[in-house]
């Protein structure tokens, strides 16, 4: 079962877990961007979620409460962004970047005194009988509940965006906010709710880092995962299932390059570290080459603020 010293079953099982933070954050950002808002503060919301989730989990002793706390923390932070961009019509790019810096700073301050504490463990969901099955056991049944939740969310978002009225409204707002407004939809209110949803998902992704993946709190624990999540949204051309593929690809390459090193591979690690980014560029080039004028299916009103007076 070994390929060059690496067990592919364990590799796949590991990458599914390691992709969860970027998958959750990227799914949230997908909804936000489909509604026409570019929130570059994903990293900030993730790190706040990581801290919020950690604190709640430590205080209550319940990892589930921790994830909810992380989602709430991320959503609260994103509301700052929502207030600035939707009410005061501030520039979205600048506000998003500021949100990241703010989130990193606030989490560093709020995390004082939480270093070195161990959170309650987030265990495997299904019984060992299933997880011990050969091959399918570790891949399908050996995970904690958040891994299943992230896949479920992918399916739900795909369905909501594609086949429901809510999805249609979100897409309408993102493609042409004037038209949506003319039809009587409250553009800014819909966007605000999407932003809060994106914040909650990013916060939950962050909480997964501090509660399950690393499990501990240190400053700057998300270490750039939010930026990768942003890249994945573009890579996936704003489609949930492709977000899942992108997250597994990025997560997989990270895990793979470490495993290859342990297995004594001859491929230099630098090439593997570059690979996900090279693939992103490649995908972008291929997709934008296909359709003239319109760049790879980006929502038409992405990054534009809306005010009813216009």
């Amino acid at each position, binding site marked *: 079962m070994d390929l060059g010293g690496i067990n592919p079953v364990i590799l796949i099982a590991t990458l599914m877990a390691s992709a969860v933070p970027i998958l959750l954050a990227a799914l949230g950002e997908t909804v936000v961007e489909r509604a026409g808002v570019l929130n570059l503060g994903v990293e900030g919301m993730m790190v706040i979620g990581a801290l919020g989730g950690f604190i709640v989990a430590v205080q209550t002793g319940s990892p589930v409460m921790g994830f909810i706390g992380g989602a709430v923390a991320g959503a609260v932070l994103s509301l700052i962004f929502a207030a600035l961009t939707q009410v005061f019509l501030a520039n979205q790019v600048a506000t998003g970047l500021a949100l990241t810096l703010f989130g990193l700073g606030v989490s560093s301050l709020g995390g004082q005194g939480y270093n070195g504490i*161990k959170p309650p463990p987030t265990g495997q969901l299904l019984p060992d009988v299933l997880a011990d099955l050969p091959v399918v056991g570790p891949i399908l049944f050996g995970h904690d509940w958040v891994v299943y939740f992230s896949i479920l969310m992918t399916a739900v978002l795909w369905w909501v965006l594609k086949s429901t009225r809510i999805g249609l409204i979100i897409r309408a707002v993102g493609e042409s906010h004037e038209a949506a407004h003319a039809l009587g939809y409250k553009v800014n209110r819909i966007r605000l709710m999407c932003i809060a949803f994106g914040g909650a998902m990013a916060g939950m992704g962050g909480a997964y880092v501090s509660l399950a993946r690393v499990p501990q709190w240190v400053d700057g624990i998300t270490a750039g995962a939010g930026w990768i999540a942003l890249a994945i949204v573009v890579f996936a051309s704003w489609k949930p299932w492709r977000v899942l593929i992108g997250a597994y690809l990025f997560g997989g390459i990270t895990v793979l390059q470490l495993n290859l*090193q*342990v297995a004594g591979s001859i491929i230099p690690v630098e090439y593997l570290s570059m690979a996900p980014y090279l693939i992103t560029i490649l995908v972008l080039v291929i997709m934008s080459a296909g359709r003239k004028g319109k760049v790879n299916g980006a929502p038409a009103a992405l990054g534009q603020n809306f005010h009813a007076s216009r």
Partner: protein
Amino acid sequence: MKRRNLLASAAMGLMLASGAFAQGMDKVKACFVYVGPIGDGGWTFQHHDGAMQVQAAYGDKVEIQYQENVPEGADAERVLTQMALGGCNIIFTTSFGYMDPTNAVAAKFPDVKFEHATGFKRDHANVSTYNARFYEGRAVQGHIAGKMTKSNKIGYIASFPIPEVIMGINSYYLHAKKANPAVELSVVWAFTWFDPAKEADAAKALIDQGVDVIAAHTDSTAPLAEAAKTEGVIGFGQASDMAEYKDGPRVSSIIDNWGPYYVKRVGALLDGTYEQIDAWEGIAGGEVLIGEITDKVPADVKAEAEALRDAIAAGTYHPFTGPINKQDGSAWLAEGATAPDGDLLGMNFFVEGIVGDIPQ
């Protein structure tokens, strides 16, 4: 306007600094540049602890300033320049990657003292370097690792391919091999000093491949947290004691104890005896401490490890004592010879028996 202010304050900073050195100073502003956050629980945490010891030792006579999370590279040069202009008398740059920025800025501020940790460049009279002989601690860890492993596979999470890290790996491996000839070492290069998620992933990759003793040369406690998830896997505290994992995987640790050095250097500046030096102390000088070896380690192994520590401290044993061959089989140290410091500081090769290449 801006430039004039800048020049004026630069000139003033130089003037203030220049009068001071010959006869000591009444008050010293000591500044520290950190590569990670103080809350990393490892490397930066220990440097900050040293800074706090300086404050405690001299009270009002010293003013401490520090900046966290300073990237190695161009940003570091900006931070250093700003500190020098801001009236710092002595600046400690606490990571290897600050080597060139430190020397570049030192050229512009001849009256400010610069102290660079773990480097080897002293291009100007006002640059000193200081380091600790961590490889001595690695020898003790290696011995414990060799004795404790059940799978005969031990792992090492390495940060960057620099002499500092490579000599740690070599020392760790040599002593593990000596304790257990069947041992195999896997090295993972993380290419970061501080990235908890990546460090945890690296530890997981090692554990997935059957490694049951993990040493890390990165700054966070994440590898220990990851090791705690798997029964039977042990690890070591790195840079700091990481005592919170004592009832988990942590069986011992290497503690960087910078305080005494910082206190000594700032004190020398205060009383006027400051000179450029190249300091490299180890277990004997108290810069490297071996954290408590827990009960998970059998008593005889613990006694051997402590004997090894004491022999190194007493100077009767050098962790790099020949015969040692390089990885390609060529001879490095002859029977009984010990490694000269120059060889260690420029070390760019694995010793015989380690599998894998050092990334270039």
